[in-house]
Every structure is written in C-alpha cells, then in structure tokens.
C-alpha cells in the first residue's frame, strides 16, 4: 500500500516505522527536517519537508496515487484541513485524522471524516487501568515482532 503520513512527531514517526517495516511504501511530511531523525536508520520510505496543507507538497509526497493518508501533526486544525484536502480533492480512499479536542473530533466525525481522538482514548484507558481492568495493548517491540512474522509468512522481502 502507498501511504502518506503528515507529521513526523512521536506518533507520525512510530507509524511510519511500523508501516515501512510492514513493507508498505511510505512518504512522511514534516515542517522540520529534524523531525525525520525519529525515523529508523533503515527507514526506506520518502521524507518531504513542507507544509502539509499545501497541495504542492502533498503532490510531491505522492498523494495522487496514495491508498491511505494519515494526519498526525500537533495541530488539530492542520490535520483537519489536510485530511479534507486528501479526501475531497485527491479522493484518497482511506483517510485517518487525529484530533485532540474531543468536541472538534465529534464535529468532524459527523461530517464524515474518520477521526481518532487520543484524549478520549487515553483517558478511557488510564481510567480502566486505575480500576485494574487494563485492556491488553501490545508494546512497540511486540508490534514489530508481529509484523516481522507476518512478513515472513507472506514471503515478502523487507
């Protein structure tokens, strides 16, 4: 799958590394080239420096033939605008948008964006943990190990 990721912070870089390891074609966009230091040294995808709500930058990242787009910058509004550009202008099939503000998230979910609100998810998980009912979430090494197994069994080269 060809995946464009906007934002190379902790989440963006982790996501890019995971998807890259899983054998997908990944492009990551960030304002600052320093952010790309978070990527693994063997990251095989593309990195693009620029503003993610600028169509030219998105085109350079290959959005025109992307199968999926994730907006995970620190700015809710930037994520919202970029996701709408990906969805409504470039018709990317799968668009996922991170929005920290729960009210904004519900507004844009109603508007048809696929949204994830870490604020609500995090609070819910922490409250479950406090009550001794923590759900099993795999750690990053476990995710990577899982992907490696998947890759071996599907016979794909890394």
């Amino acid at each position, binding site marked *: 799958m060809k995946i464009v990721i906007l934002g190379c912070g902790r989440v963006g870089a982790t996501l890019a590394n995971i998807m890259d390891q899983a054998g997908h074609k990944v492009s990551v966009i960030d304002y600052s080239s320093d952010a790309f230091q978070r990527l693994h040294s063997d990251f095989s995808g593309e990195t693009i420096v620029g503003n993610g*709500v*600028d*169509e*030219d930058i998105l085109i350079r990242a290959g959005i025109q033939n992307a199968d999926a787009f994730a907006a995970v910058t620190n*700015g*809710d*509004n*930037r994520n*919202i*605008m*970029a996701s*709408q*550009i990906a969805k*409504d*202008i470039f018709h990317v099939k799968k668009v996922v948008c991170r929005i920290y*503000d729960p*009210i*904004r998230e519900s*507004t844009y979910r*109603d*508007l048809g964006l696929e949204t994830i609100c870490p604020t609500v998810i995090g609070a819910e998980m922490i409250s479950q943990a406090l009550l001794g009912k923590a759900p099993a979430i795999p750690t990053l090494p476990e995710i990577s190990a899982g992907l490696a197994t998947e890759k071996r069994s599907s016979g794909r080269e890394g």
Partner: protein
Amino acid sequence: MYIIIGGGGDIGYYLTKTLLGQGHEVLLLEKNPVRYQSLSEELGQAVMRGDACEARTLAEVGANRADVVIAVTGEDEDNLVICQMAKRRFNVGRTIARLNNPKHEQIFQKLGIDSTVSPTRTILSLIELELSSANFVPIMTLKRAGLDIIEMRISPDSPVAGKLLRQINLPTNASIALIIRDSQHIFPTAETRILADDEVYALVGRDEEEALRKALGAIS
C-alpha cells in the same frame, strides 16, 4: 447584525472597529492573552479572550444567533475550522474566511465556506494590473451565488470605450455594479457611458468571466 470575528490581528482589529462604527453588534475573539489585553483596552467588551475554533467558545458567545462569522487569523487551517464549526455546529448563515495561501480558494469553496478573501491574490492581481499585462482583477468570490467580483480598467483601445452600457453586449450572468472615474463613483444605469480609464467593478458568474473579459476588451 451580530458578527463574530475570529483572530485579533490587524485585519480583525480594523474590521471590528469599522463594523462597530457602523452600528453592528461585533464580537472579536483573540486567543493570545497579551494581544487580547491590548485589544481590550481599546475595544472593551467587544473583544473576548478565546479560541474561535473551539465549540465551547463559540457557544459562549452565542454563535447560534450570529448572522456572520468572519475568520481572519494568519493560519488558513484555523480559518477553515472556525468557519466550518460555525456553520456545522451553530448553523451560522454566512461564513467568510481570509486566505493566506491563494491556492486554498478551491478547497475552501468545496468545503462549504461562503466567501473567501485572499489579500495575496488581490495584491498579486494589482501588481499584474500595474504591469498592465492583465487588467482584469478578481477581488472576491461569492461562493453561494457562484459569482466573482472583479475590477477592470478600461483601456483606450477597448471596444466598449465611449459606448453606453445598453449598447454593450454583456454575458447574461454579468452586471456592472460600479464605475470609478476621476475619484468619483458612479452607480451605472443603461444610459451610463463607459470611458477609457474607467475602473469598472462587475459581478460575474464564475464560468462567464472569460466572456466578460472579451466583452470589455480586457488584455489577457
């Protein structure tokens, strides 16, 4: 009218002052505490500290009874979200956004913002006008009506220079709204004569701009 303005930069400040002076009920939202402080010293109750992107803030200022919401922050994504929140959550009838990147015009229109104003595009157009390679300047887009407001200077060799308005074959979806001649404004009628060097302001349907350009003899 009740008008909410998001973003207390220079544009937001002068808009607020002007609209207050015209007797409107205006509320300016500014999220930066330092900027808010200096705005409130002059504007008093007309400015409130808050983020216009946030539904809570908009609810607090009664966005549901606002006639217009205008977003003029320095960030296009903030202006988009301010207008969309106002429209979708509070059913505000009319939203106007400032565009910093003129290329965002199309996406804003597609995403339901009623009008956009792009200072960058206007200034670029004016520079082009001064350089006289083009003399047909888009000023503003009225999305809901599908119209553009354009400005054009009539060149001396234009086929319409010296003609009465009724003698000019304008496209169906175009209307000349205003003529500026020697610092005087003229609201034209069918009997108004167009002269060389007139500055003409017209409303025109998006797909008839080219026809209007030809009809008025614009250099393209």
